[in-house]
């Protein structure tokens, strides 16, 4: 293999090699080339060190109620659409400010007087299996289906020898 660093595409090959995105043949060829090219070896080592350092910035966990909030927003938006279609006449705008304030106060008072059942109260009446577990199980099943289940069945099949 020609030396990528001596040609124009050296940086790209090194970056792609470390990222693991070279096609199998080029990847293999470059590995063989590195055996005889210290410059490429050093370049790869430097990029790998950087890659590893960048791995320190791991992902933050996503809030458990992310999906719930999103579906609620979707539901509110869909509900809001038919409400807006009533087409309020423009002269309603003027009393809007005191009305809005009154709405907020009374809605708050309603919620305070009718507190939601606490999670622990709900938990006492819950069946043992959490419905979310069923959802998660289905999520995993859908994910695993992408593998093409027959490929990793429990049935014995002769191994192709390498």
């Amino acid at each position, binding site marked *: 293999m020609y030396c990528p660093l001596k040609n124009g595409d050296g*940086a*790209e090959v090194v*970056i792609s090699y470390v*990222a693991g*995105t070279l096609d199998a043949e080029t990847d293999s060829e470059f590995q063989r080339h590195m055996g005889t090219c210290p410059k490429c070896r050093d370049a790869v080592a*430097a*990029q790998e*060190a*950087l*890659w590893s*350092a*960048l791995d*320190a*910035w791991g*992902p*933050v*966990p*996503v*809030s458990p109620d*992310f*999906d719930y*909030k*999103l579906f609620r*927003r*979707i539901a509110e*938006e869909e509900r809001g659409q038919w409400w807006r279609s009533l087409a309020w006449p423009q002269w309603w705008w003027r009393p809007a400010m005191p009305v809005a304030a009154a709405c907020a106060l009374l809605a708050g008072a309603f919620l305070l007087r009718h507190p939601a059942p606490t999670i622990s109260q709900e938990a006492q009446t819950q069946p043992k299996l959490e419905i979310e577990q069923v959802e998660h199980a289905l*999520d995993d099943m*859908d*994910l695993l289906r992408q593998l093409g289940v027959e490929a990793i069945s429990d049935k014995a099949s002769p191994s192709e020898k390498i």
Partner: protein
Amino acid sequence: MVRVRDGDQASFGLLLEKHRSPVVHFLHRMVHNRAVAEELAQEVFLRVYRSRENYEPTAKFTTWLFRIAMHLGLNWIRDGRNEKFHDRLDDETSDGASKQVPDRSRTVELELVYQAKLREVRQAIESLPSKQRAAVMLHKYEELEYTQIANVLSCSESAVKSLLYRAYESLRTRLAHMA
């Protein structure tokens, strides 16, 4: 996404399952605030949901998704509200504990070293010009292909390669002591 367009609601859940974390992580790296990142990520998926009936699979779905995320993230940053909500890079609460979730398998000493390393990496990436920063985040953390990155950043593939080359070179210099 084609199934969502054709009315299969369950497929939207699948999309969410697959792409929720990457989108939140990408936005968190852009805006440095978890609550804002999640808020913006919700907006991303809301827009996807709203556009479902008009969706045409002309490009990879992830490309479209990250384009929306990039657009929303940049808008938020440009709006200048980031100063008020920006988590400080040292990310400490009032009692001195780090907000970044500590790994309980590390000793206290190792945890401090890790947090210091994390700060340096974040600062190094933050110091890159915005397009280089975006290219690195999409390439390194979201593992998008060059063509996808080009689509998200609205530039050519060769421009992406050039961005990445310069970005990684800067980062290698700045973080060389971590090798």
